């Protein structure tokens, strides 16, 4: 599940990088194709490595999603989307984001599973099935080729010929061999071998299958298929250009004719297998060969600069818009760590990590020490119990008795931030000796809070501003015990348990 979201986020990031590469590729259309070929490494890096470093130079800041501070991840689709009450996806283009978000189902309080989780689960299943099918398909087509070239006969070194293929290619991972169709003339052979040797020299026979495996992982993204196709074309063209460079301009005509005759006279194998090399994009390749000129040094230098800029700009993440270096003390509000509270907001009291995070972001009354957390999540009503040890009673006692006042605010906040909890219990064990080691417990239920405030407090958890409003409101509430004893006793039931 999580893996699917990582892939999804990488895919979205890589789509933007693909767009950038296609634009730069257009700028470099007159430059040698090796430069266009190198550009694709930016897309490949984005498809393989989920984390990256941040720079101010990142081109992705135009589509700034949530860059998780400290993790280096680009998150268009948040990892905890299955847990959010209002799932939010930011793909970087606001209109599209809006369209997606309006179609995402929100959490319903009655259902035990968030519908978003079901969608994610289905998505993961479809994704993994697609990966499996494509993987099988490419393995089978690779094995088919292997059986075809098994009886190929030695020409020289690692060059083999066979009448079972119609187009030359390199095949193999550890010891790559060049396979050529039978009946190729001597001068044609020299071009073809130089072209295929260039593939071997550049490790293209490893790069291409690797890139195809990555495309399989991102099969749901058409942009990645487009990238793969264009990358293959740039790869072939740059090898063609090396042949012309090495053998001279005068061979352009006969080299082009060789390519043409290979694709016309034998129209058997369509060079379909992504794992081997074949003659593809013949028309464009021939036009490219004929128009190829040796690049000027000026063109080489500027192309290299453009490439370096694009690769750094596209493989780094943008610096987060709001610097995350705020001191914890700065982000506390009336004793509450707002950042921590918002981050740990949860739909489910069963999510003990988040609930624990919420408690640690709460203001703790002086004189109390936290002593663990118990969650009651077996059946409705769901509850959470927070245990404290009291070391100093001055702050929490009023007129000689333990007062529940210090816990009102915390409980109301927790009932706001934990969507499905029904009651919050504070259990305080006396360690001062003042109360004979007795344990006091205060229970606050959602109903009581509803009566007290006249509304459901959950909507305050929407964002930081509303949460601050709730805290302000709680501050202005007076729990005046002398004048308004009834509300106090309604809100908290004090149980005295003899320890």
């Amino acid at each position: 599940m999580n893996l699917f979201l990582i892939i999804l986020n990488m895919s979205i990031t890589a789509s933007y990088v693909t767009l950038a590469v296609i634009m730069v590729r257009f700028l470099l259309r007159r430059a040698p194709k090796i430069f266009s070929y190198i550009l694709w490494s930016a897309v490949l890096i984005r498809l393989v490595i989920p984390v990256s470093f941040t720079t101010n130079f990142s081109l992705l800041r135009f589509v700034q999603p949530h860059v998780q501070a400290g993790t280096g991840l680009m998150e268009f689709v948040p990892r905890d989307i299955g847990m959010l009450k209002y799932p939010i996806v930011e793909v970087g283009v606001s209109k599209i984001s809006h369209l997606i978000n309006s179609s995402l189902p929100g959490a319903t309080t009655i259902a035990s599973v968030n519908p978003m989780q079901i969608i994610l689960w289905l998505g993961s299943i479809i994704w993994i099935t697609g990966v499996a099918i494509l993987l099988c398909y490419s393995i089978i087509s690779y094995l088919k080729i292997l059986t075809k070239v098994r009886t190929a006969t030695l020409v020289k070194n690692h060059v083999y010929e066979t009448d079972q293929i119609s187009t030359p290619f390199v095949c193999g991972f550890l010891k790559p061999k060049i396979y050529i169709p039978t009946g190729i003339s001597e001068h044609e052979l020299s071009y073809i071998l130089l072209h295929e040797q260039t593939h071997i020299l550049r490790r293209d026979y490893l790069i291409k299958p690797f890139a195809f495996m990555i495309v399989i992982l991102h099969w749901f993204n058409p942009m990645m298929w487009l990238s793969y196709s264009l990358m293959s074309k740039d790869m072939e063209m740059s090898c063609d250009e090396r042949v012309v460079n090495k053998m001279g301009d005068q061979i352009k005509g006969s080299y082009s004719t060789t390519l043409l005759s290979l694709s016309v006279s034998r129209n058997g194998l369509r060079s379909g297998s992504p794992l081997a090399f074949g003659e593809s994009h013949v028309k464009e390749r021939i036009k490219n060969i004929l128009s190829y000129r040796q690049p000027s040094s000026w063109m080489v230098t500027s192309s290299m600069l453009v490439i370096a800029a694009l690769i750094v700009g596209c493989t780094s993440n943008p610096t987060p818009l709001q610097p995350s270096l705020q001191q914890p003390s700065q982000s506390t509000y009336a004793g509450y760590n707002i950042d921590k509270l918002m981050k740990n907001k949860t739909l489910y009291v069963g999510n003990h990590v988040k609930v624990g995070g919420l408690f640690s972001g709460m203001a703790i009354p002086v004189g109390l020490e936290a002593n663990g957390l118990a969650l009651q999540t077996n059946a409705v009503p769901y509850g959470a119990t927070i245990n404290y040890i009291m070391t100093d009673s001055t702050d929490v006692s009023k007129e000689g008795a333990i007062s529940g006042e210090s816990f009102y605010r915390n409980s109301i906040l927790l009932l706001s931030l934990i969507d499905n909890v029904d009651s919050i219990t504070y259990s305080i064990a006396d360690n001062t000796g003042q109360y004979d080691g007795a344990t006091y417990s205060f229970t606050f239920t959602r109903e009581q809070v509803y009566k007290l405030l006249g509304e459901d407090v959950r909507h305050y958890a929407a964002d930081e501003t509303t949460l601050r409003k709730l805290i302000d409101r709680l501050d202005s509430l007076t729990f005046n015990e002398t004048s308004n004893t009834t509300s106090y006793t309604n809100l908290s039931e004090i149980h005295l348990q003899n320890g």
Partner: protein
Amino acid sequence: MIIIEPYKLFDAEYKFACLIWDNEPINSTDLVKLSQAKLGWKKSTTYTVLRKLCERGILSNDEATVTAIVKKTDAQKYESQTVVEKAFSGSLPQFLTAFLGGKKLSEDEAEELKRIIEEATK
């Protein structure tokens, strides 16, 4: 009167049979070494092709001695094209092939390219 239909052989089969025509009778172990040197074949490849040609009645392998049944003059190479086409069609779905490999050239396009090449190299 019996008309002997010439035996059609693939390029690899023909080259392999040539080794036997030139060296028969040949011990199968020697044949493996010979095809390793001349054709670059693994032992398993040699035995597979040998078995197939024996089944088709072209060669005979009698107690590790290989001889030819069909004379070199009666054999000829296949026109391989049609076979290749059948063997390879559908190795990837049509749309993927078209997408990844570029479109197949039509005759018109081939003519046009020929003209472009000629003009460019005048």
